[in-house]
């Protein structure tokens, strides 16, 4: 079976989330959402079954919350969100992320993105923040972000029980070494090379002892992704499912 790019990412995310009790996913994040559903599926299949609480922001049914939008942030502060996803118009080698704009002088930037959303808070408090940005280019992966929406971990004495565990892109998976404040290339996706990663990354990074190929899902997992996961995620991300899993939408 051919594994699509999306399926590889969903599988990778599912594995990263497996240890969690509680995962939250942003409103426009179908791949992370599907990955979280996969992790929940696996947890429920354990003996004894384990419950993984999942909240997809904006979803009515895939939602463990009942008190409105502020609840996500309070839950994160309480230590009740184990994993969350953040992206960025720019990401740099110290894991600073920029969701505001590039070029020019703030607020009159040449390019304006939507804004920082909850990043300047969740990045400090959620233990496993997965940086997820499909586009892997020197435009995104920059030496230094133009605006710090949320800073990467640093030894500044600021209360920070959380932070990034790594960065997942269309090319590879980097872990992030919080002490050394550097990304470490861990696996490269099938069909891509370390060279290609290096060419498309504007910041320096380390290379793990042996860079393996990102593990693809096995046949059973692929069936799960294409069947139940695609159907479950259709509510929250109708358009995405119609595009990627036309038979489930």
């Amino acid at each position, binding site marked *: 079976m051919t594994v699509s790019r999306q399926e590889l990412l969903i599988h990778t995310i599912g594995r990263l989330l497996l240890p969690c009790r509680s995962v939250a996913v942003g409103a426009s994040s179908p791949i992370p959402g599907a990955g979280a559903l996969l992790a929940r599926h696996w947890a429920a299949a354990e003996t004894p079954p384990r419950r993984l609480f999942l909240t997809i922001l904006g979803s009515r049914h895939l939602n463990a919350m009942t008190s*409105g939008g502020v609840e996500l942030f309070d839950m994160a502060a309480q230590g009740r969100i184990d994993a969350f996803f953040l992206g960025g118009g720019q990401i740099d080698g110290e894991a600073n992320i920029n969701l505001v704009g590039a070029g020019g002088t703030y607020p009159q930037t040449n390019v304006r993105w939507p804004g920082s959303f909850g990043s*300047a808070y969740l990045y400090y408090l959620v233990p496993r923040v997965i940086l997820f940005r499909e586009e892997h280019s020197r435009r995104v992966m920059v030496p230094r972000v133009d605006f710090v929406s949320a800073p990467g971990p640093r030894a500044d004495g600021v209360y920070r029980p959380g932070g990034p565990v790594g960065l997942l892109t269309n090319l590879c998976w980097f872990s992030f070494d919080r002490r050394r404040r550097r990304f470490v290339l861990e696996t490269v996706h099938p069909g891509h090379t370390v060279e290609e990663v290096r060419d498309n990354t504007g910041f320096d990074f380390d290379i793990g002892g042996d860079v393996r190929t990102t593990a693809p899902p096995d046949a059973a997992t692929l069936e799960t992704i294409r069947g139940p996961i695609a159907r479950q995620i259709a509510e929250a991300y109708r358009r995405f499912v119609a595009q990627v899993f036309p038979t489930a939408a």
Partner: protein
Amino acid sequence: MSQDWLRSSVEELATQVSDGAKIAVPHDGLGVAMETTRALIRRGVRDLHLVCVPVSDLQADLLIGAGCVRTLETSAISFGEHGTPHRFHAALKAGTIEMRDATCPAIHAAIEAGRKNIPFIPLRGIIGSDLLTHRSDWKVIDNPFAAHRDPIVLLPAIRPDFAVIHAPYADRDGNIFIGRQHDLAVMAQAAIHGALVTVEEVRDVDLLASEETAAGTLPAIYVAGSAVAARGAWPLGLADHYETDEAHLRDYSQLARTADGFARYLDEFVHRRRQAAE
């Protein structure tokens, strides 16, 4: 019971908002009062301080494009997959609005502080973000309860003049059903004068009579005025009632690329009040 809380029209409701008022608005899906927004533009309100709780989309872009906004406080302005908020971008470039970039939990916490009418509230995170560099109204202090150095941000409370919202229905006493969207209640409570509310309809029921509905109700004491506006969130959606009119949003985003196109949109959909067929 006299229905002194019920205004004859959305136009009358909109007259309660003075030039220079600070208004808090929710985000798409929660009950964005789009018909009130159009009425505000029609009456030519100026110099609004718009507090998006915690983000906004079409509502902010329309108000900014129509020249109603002096200060914009938000954690994001985004149309998602439906296009680009061109009027917001144009106003930023032109420097015609004061931009206060924030982060969602900071806006929520400041509104919660407004509800308690405490002058400020501490919040974790934020330190090291450039948001803080540009928010001279946010302060960093050393947590006085910590044994060691522990810097923390203090946010000043937000008490808007009004929360402006749309909801499924009011009961006969002017209580508003908001369901699990507790954020809307917090906004209304934080507002000095309370909420200006449009509803799809008034129902002859008492929301406070049962525990089930009371828990999802904004009591009338927080309501500064209400008016009926069927499909009052259009072209945005209202959960359980109607979906966002995505085609209209895409059309809007196309038109609003240029000042001219935006003016045509205003003329047609705001001043001449055309609505898409249901």
